[in-house]
């Protein structure tokens, strides 16, 4: 399990670097998908298969598909790659990465001062355990999350609504597209 943890952690870090340095948007998204799947594998290695499976289903299987979908619709082409290249000049990324490095040092220092002898292990968490935890002590958070999602749903259906049939300025084709998106 330890080897699996470190290996998938390493892949996650490398893939995320690939997301940042790649100039082709679709290739960058491919790296991001790989990164999310390897994070899911980290969850598996830590004995939380439920969280790992949900990570793949929700992030890699649903949210990233929408990202890829939109990027493909935009069809950025060579212009997009040129723009990305222009943004990857040291003058632009040096400042933010210095600040991020400070954060990294703080994180490593915190980890170092903590319990360094702990092993990568843990009992396997079942879906039932996760469920009873979510709907027990964390019920309030779940309810708040549900309300937020409901608000988002209402907003989305308001923004994407099709005009009533007696107003013919929206033709049937755009109606179909709205249902598809």
């Amino acid at each position, binding site marked *: 399990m330890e080897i699996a943890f470190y290996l998938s952690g390493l892949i996650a870090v490398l893939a995320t670097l690939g997301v940042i340095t790649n100039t*082709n948007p*679709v*290739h960058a998204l*491919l790296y991001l*998908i790989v990164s999310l*799947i390897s994070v899911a594998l980290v969850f598996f290695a830590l004995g939380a*298969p*439920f969280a790992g*499976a*949900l990570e*793949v*289903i929700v992030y*890699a*299987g*649903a949210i990233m*598909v*929408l990202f*890829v*979908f939109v990027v*493909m*619709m935009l069809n950025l082409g060579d212009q997009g790659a040129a723009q990305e290249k222009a943004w990857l000049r040291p003058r632009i990324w040096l400042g933010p990465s210095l600040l991020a490095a400070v954060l990294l040092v703080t994180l490593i220092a915190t980890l170092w001062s903590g319990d360094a002898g702990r092993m990568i292990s843990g009992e*396997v968490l*079942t*879906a*039932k355990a996760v469920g009873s935890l979510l709907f027990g002590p964390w019920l309030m958070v779940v309810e708040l999350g549900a309300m937020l999602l409901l608000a988002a749903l209402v907003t989305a259906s308001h923004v994407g609504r099709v005009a009533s049939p007696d107003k013919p300025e929206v033709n049937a084709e755009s*109606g*179909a597209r709205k*249902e*598809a*998106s």
Partner: protein
Amino acid sequence: MSWLSPTIVASLIAMLQAVVILLGAVLLGAVMTVVERRLLGLWQDRYGPNRVGPFGSLQLIADMIKIFFKEDWIPPFADRTLFVLAPVIAMASLLLSFMIIPITPGWGVADLNIGLLFFLAMAGINVYAVLFGGWSSSNKYALIGAMRASAQTLSYEVFMGLALMGVVAMTGSFNMREIVNAQEGLWFVIPQFFGFCTFLIAGIAVTHRHPFDQPEAEQELADGYHIEYSSMKFGMFFIGEYVGMVLVSALIVTLFFGGWHGPLLPPIVWFALKTGAFLVFFVLLRASLPRPRYDRVMSFGWKFCLPLTLINLLVTGAVILIADPL
């Protein structure tokens, strides 16, 4: 033979089982390509492929020779990496899903406690095959096909997961073996009839089978997302579709029709019979139904199937609570 300890023997047997199941799934997918054409011919009152060998039985070999020896052409305008990766994802994600299916009490690859979720995860990954294949081809028809496919798959995956949750709630586990064992007295198709109906529809839509094959509708899109593919890359998409069909049939049998349970005959025969029946049913659907319009497919999914699965889950939960208060 001191190295042949019981654990090594056990793991060798497990590996052998896995390889047999893998080859069986691929072979069944390949055989289905020919069986489907023969059955379509029968039902549509024409001959179908009946020339190669007795009753056309060697058609599969002829097809394989043809597809292996065709030129494997990558268009110069295509995005090479993704173009090669797409068929691999199409085939691998579906084949990996066979891992969770318990065929008989002794046969099966992995006994995961998140079993069903693994299938849903692999179905989610499978969308990328179509998306990347369509985009990397740099072809308008391929791109439109990929767009349609991904929108359709995303919408139908939402309630595919919800349709299965009724079964999970009744069993109290995601584990496939426990689900099969819970159906010893009564198959889940009876208490979960609406779950079965919606999962069947979603399964057809996710594997892009007719009548949900808008992504590759020949009349409008030439061939959809795999229009630029040739030789074995096309073959992988093609066989992948049939492997998906076998997978969905096997899943329906495991989840709703009691898996290997059945009187008299041995478990493996029952499993094969039930799966075969669903494969034939899929072909019959293709032979008999016309293709609906794309926007109707989408609104049917969101406005009819999704509410139906939600109500089904709600009623299932209420019945479980009434029957067995905590």
